[in-house]
């Protein structure tokens, strides 16, 4: 069975702090994809990143960075110098071509960035 765990229900930080959102996944498939989505208060789901299981290189995009470690089945997301506009719910998700590519979502982490 596939499962995604986001143990942090809610995180509060002050602007300019760095924050890391944790994601741990379970799958028996050798090929799979990991995703992060952002859901701001407006409700729309914004795609942030997709990673395949064969690519363990860390990725940086502006203030966002992702750390994929197969050894610990984790795909953590770090926001550097957080801003108020980063306040949202962040979802980690898993999919597999052996499972019709449907997304299995974690329960989400609500990030609040205070000025």
């Amino acid at each position: 069975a596939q499962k995604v765990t986001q143990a942090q229900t809610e995180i509060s930080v002050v602007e300019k702090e760095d924050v890391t959102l944790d994601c741990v996944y379970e799958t028996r498939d050798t090929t799979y994809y990991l995703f992060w989505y952002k859901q701001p208060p407006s409700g729309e789901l914004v795609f942030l990143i997709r990673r395949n299981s064969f690519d363990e290189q860390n990725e940086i995009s502006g203030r966002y960075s992702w750390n994929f470690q197969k050894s610990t089945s984790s795909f953590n997301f770090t926001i550097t110098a957080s801003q108020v506009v980063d306040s949202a719910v962040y979802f980690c998700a898993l999919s597999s071509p052996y499972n019709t590519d449907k997304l299995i979502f974690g329960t989400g982490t609500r990030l609040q960035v205070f000025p």
Partner: protein
Amino acid sequence: SAVISQKPSRDICQRGTSLTIQCQVDSQVTMMFWYRQQPGQSLTLIATANQGSEATYESGFVIDKFPISRPNLTFSTLTVSNMSPEDSSIYLCSVAAKSYNEQFFGPGTRLTVL
């Protein structure tokens, strides 16, 4: 990336009625998905809709309650039938771009059942 629109964006409905949600994509896609997000919760897949075949429903969801149509490669509908207050949720359509294995989501339909 794909541009996805949903109609209606929100609705308030009476118990016992049905609502059909439309999902339109600006390009042809193989797979479309319907998700439900109950208040304060994560997203749960309702069903996968492929063009030309019956939708595949996840455990806990049945066709009589959530009939789905997929008449072509750019359009799908989800009907929420015989609604109760427990159906109050955001319903999201998503599409998979197979060549990139990316999934994009529509803006969602906020449904409130009184």
